[in-house]
């Protein structure tokens, strides 16, 4: 069963445009929602993360929007650059027990065209 559903599977954006990736989760006990960025041949790396007590978090050109009632969250990449071309994964976890286990979405491959 897929507890975190991510869309779209792939995305092509022009340089300078806005990239939007969406995720939906089922388990209301999730209380930590990170986004990971992965370049080809590399392991994923944490990009930005949010807790459900806020509706938005911004770091530079990257913003997470969180809708607790809809159980959805999204990543917005403003002024997208070719260097942003990568695979992006949303994830969710429960901090109870603090084992840090993450449930990942299926991933979105982003291509930013020059």
């Amino acid at each position, binding site marked *: 069963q897929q507890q975190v559903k991510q869309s779209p599977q792939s995305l092509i954006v022009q340089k300078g445009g806005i990239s939007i990736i969406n995720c939906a989760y089922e388990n209301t006990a999730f209380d*930590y929602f990170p986004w990971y960025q992965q370049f080809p041949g590399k392991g994923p790396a944490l990009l930005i993360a949010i807790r459900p007590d806020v509706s938005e978090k911004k770091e530079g050109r990257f913003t997470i929007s969180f809708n607790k009632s809809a159980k959805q969250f999204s990543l917005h990449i403003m002024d997208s650059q070719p260097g942003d071309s990568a695979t992006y994964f949303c994830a969710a976890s429960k901090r109870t027990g603090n*084992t*840090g*286990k993450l449930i990942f979405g299926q991933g979105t491959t982003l291509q930013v065209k020059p």
Partner: protein
Amino acid sequence: DAGITQSPRHKVTETGTPVTLRCHQTENHRYMYWYRQDPGHGLRLIHYSYGVKDTDKGEVSDGYSVSRSKTEDFLLTLESATSSQTSVYFCAISDGTGSYNEQFFGPGTRLTVL
């Protein structure tokens, strides 16, 4: 980059043979995780460890076993490899502290089972 190495980085083996993948960390982090990455599935947790000799199953643990005899090493064993275990395997570590319990990923091991 976090001090995580995985060995081997690439391996081709035949169905029915045992395979062991190694994850080594130099960060002295408490938590270690094994994930597999497959197209359309994102990253799925196989097993994790919350201390020396303390391990637990993830969502896709069938056919895999793990061991952690030292803080720095976490081994993943496929007792009898099958073609369905062809995948890219990532190790991750976390110190279990901080607001976001960030996981740091290794470079991955590409395993092909013929």
